[in-house]
């Protein structure tokens, strides 16, 4: 028994696997990671759970799947303009008691859907069983908007972080590996670039054209790679001087192997532990831009716009509390992940967080 345990301990693991194991032992971060990953994956098939379009409609012996295709109301003999309203359709079919039926998502309100016709009184409506987080001043369901905003926030932050890291790593690596003139020239360019005022550029661009998701990603990326180069450059300088790299040079390793096989994998530690916090920063950045009105165009369900509405209608507590609470929970979960990652990459054995 004891021997078996010994044997298992003897199985050799790479550094990465070791770190992943250590990460898993830090429960707070690990569970946050699982939850965020799960929710993010779910958010790609969100229309199956939350949305206005029915999953399946059986009408006059034909099957339709409105979440994939557009169907005008007239196709189902509904007397409203534009797309069919499946909630009303379901009510109608069940009253008719015929062969027709509608399968709706669990939560059947879309993020951009105006529900004025189906609600009583003036918006915003307080939370109720039907609208669990109430409706906003344009009578849209707050829960649906928050749920759809999750995917936008995370996707935005992930893409910006990914591309900014990519640019930062490439430029920092060039500086650190080649040093000398390459380093100096790139450094001057970075310094010039860093003096461009990010907020003004965004405001100017947003006033000239309506920014969409990709344009915002691009602008944010262009302004957030700079810090990464500092880390990567420093790491490259340090690792390059180590003997294992000299050994590789002495055996005639080609430059690309020196960079990609030897130096790069050993230079990523600081920026990997930095990544979750960069994601937090980018989520907050999008929220701020949306809040200020320079972000994604309406009616995109973004968290910043929800919070802005909450500010304007501060007396309707659900417009303030729910978006803020959800954003807070998301950010804190990612911070937990970041803490755990940092801890997992820390060579010291005894962790604080356990």
């Amino acid at each position: 028994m004891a021997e078996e345990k010994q044997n298992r301990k003897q199985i050799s693991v790479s550094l990465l696997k070791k770190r992943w194991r250590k990460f898993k032992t830090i429960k707070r971060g690990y569970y946050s990671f699982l939850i965020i990953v799960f929710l993010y994956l779910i958010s790609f098939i969100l229309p199956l759970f939350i949305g206005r379009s029915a999953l399946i409609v059986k009408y006059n012996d034909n099957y339709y799947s409105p979440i994939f295709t557009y169907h005008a109301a007239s196709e189902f003999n509904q007397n409203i303009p534009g797309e069919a309203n499946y909630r009303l359709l379901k009510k109608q079919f069940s009253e008719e008691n015929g062969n027709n039926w509608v399968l709706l998502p669990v939560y059947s309100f879309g993020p951009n859907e105006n529900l004025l016709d189906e609600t009583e009184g003036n918006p915003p409506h307080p939370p109720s069983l039907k609208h669990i987080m109430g409706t906003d001043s344009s009578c849209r369901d707050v829960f649906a908007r928050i749920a759809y905003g999750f995917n936008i926030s995370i996707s935005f932050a992930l893409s910006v972080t990914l591309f900014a890291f990519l640019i930062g790593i490439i430029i920092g690596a060039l500086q650190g590996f080649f040093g000398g003139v390459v380093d100096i020239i790139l450094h001057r360019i970075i310094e010039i670039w860093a003096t461009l005022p990010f907020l003004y550029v965004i405001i100017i661009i947003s006033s000239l054209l309506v920014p969409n998701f990709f344009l915002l990603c691009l602008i944010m990326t262009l302004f957030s790679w700079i810090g990464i180069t500092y880390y990567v450059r420093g790491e490259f300088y340090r690792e390059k001087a180590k003997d294992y790299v000299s050994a590789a040079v002495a055996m005639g390793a080609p430059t690309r192997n020196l960079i990609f096989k030897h130096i790069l994998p050993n230079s990523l530690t600081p920026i990997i532990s930095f990544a979750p916090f960069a994601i937090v920063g980018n989520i907050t950045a999008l929220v701020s831009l949306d809040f200020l009105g320079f972000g994604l165009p309406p009616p995109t369900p973004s968290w910043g716009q929800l919070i802005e509405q909450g500010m304007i209608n501060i007396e309707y507590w659900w417009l303030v509390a729910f978006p803020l609470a959800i954003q807070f929970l998301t950010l804190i979960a990612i911070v937990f992940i970041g803490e755990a990652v940092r801890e997992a990459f820390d060579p010291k054995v005894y962790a604080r967080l356990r």
Partner: protein
Amino acid sequence: MNQDNILEIRNLSVNFPVTGGFFKRKIADLNAVDGINLEIKKGETLGLVGESGCGKSTIGKAIIKLLKFNSPDVKVSGEILIKTEDGEIDIIKLKNKDLRKYRGYIQIVFQDPYSSLNPRMSVGQIIEEPMKYHSKISKKERGERIAYLLEKVGMQPEQAKRYPHEFSGGQRQRVGIARALATNPKLIIADEPVSALDVSIQAQVINLLQELQSEFDLSLLFIAHDLSVVEHISSKISVMYLGNIVESGLSKEVYHKPVHPYSKALLSAVPLPRVSLEKNERIILKGDIPTPLNKPSGCGFRTRCPIAQKECAESIPPLELKRENHFAACFFSK
């Protein structure tokens, strides 16, 4: 180039420019190696000894052309000739691109076993890498060769799957030696391979190097700052001081009958009772080694030399034959 030699160094000088000030201009030249000559015969071990900072590693790195990689502004002059199948080549003149093919002839074992292995590669991958560049053997053959080399350096073939962080310093140094052997080199430069190890492990690693040397018919440039370590393994010893070779000869000669006052001082620092040293005279050097930035005129050693005279400041003593096969650079010592 002499028939028996595998390596010949002629008049090698290495200067590191020292930059300073706001504009990073060159303000001085650090003369780390000052016109030295060396030869290593096939299958021979040359011990290179000297205090730290005297330029031993710089010579080693010049031989495998590593200096430019980390100090692009370094100035290297002289000739470093090695014998290859394609005749003799001068490493200093050769472009990196053309040199790559000959990289396998000379390999190096580093001082620090912790930084000399890539922490992200398994021991097997570390030993395999040089084979990929220098031999056209299949993956299976490479695996067999990894196992063979691990056995040769006194480890188990199963340990190929392990990562460096799972090993002790001595075992890592063995991995470093296996990596150096992987290309079937003619010459191995061992740059203080045991200085970072526990004393109890040092002898093991030195013995291992000695066994491997005769088995693989290697030539060895063994660098150390301790004469007693070198004496054991080398057939010849060169003693360095401040970028110059001050004494060179057969190992026993230099160890038991040193000529140069610096070698005598180095030896009297060895804590073993040695019969041959006359009446147990102990030479304790005054002061520190001068910096190569500000070398004394004439003989570099004169500032600390017990027998220095006026002439020593005026001209540099040449390395001359003092006894049979025994050279020293001193005007007064016999």
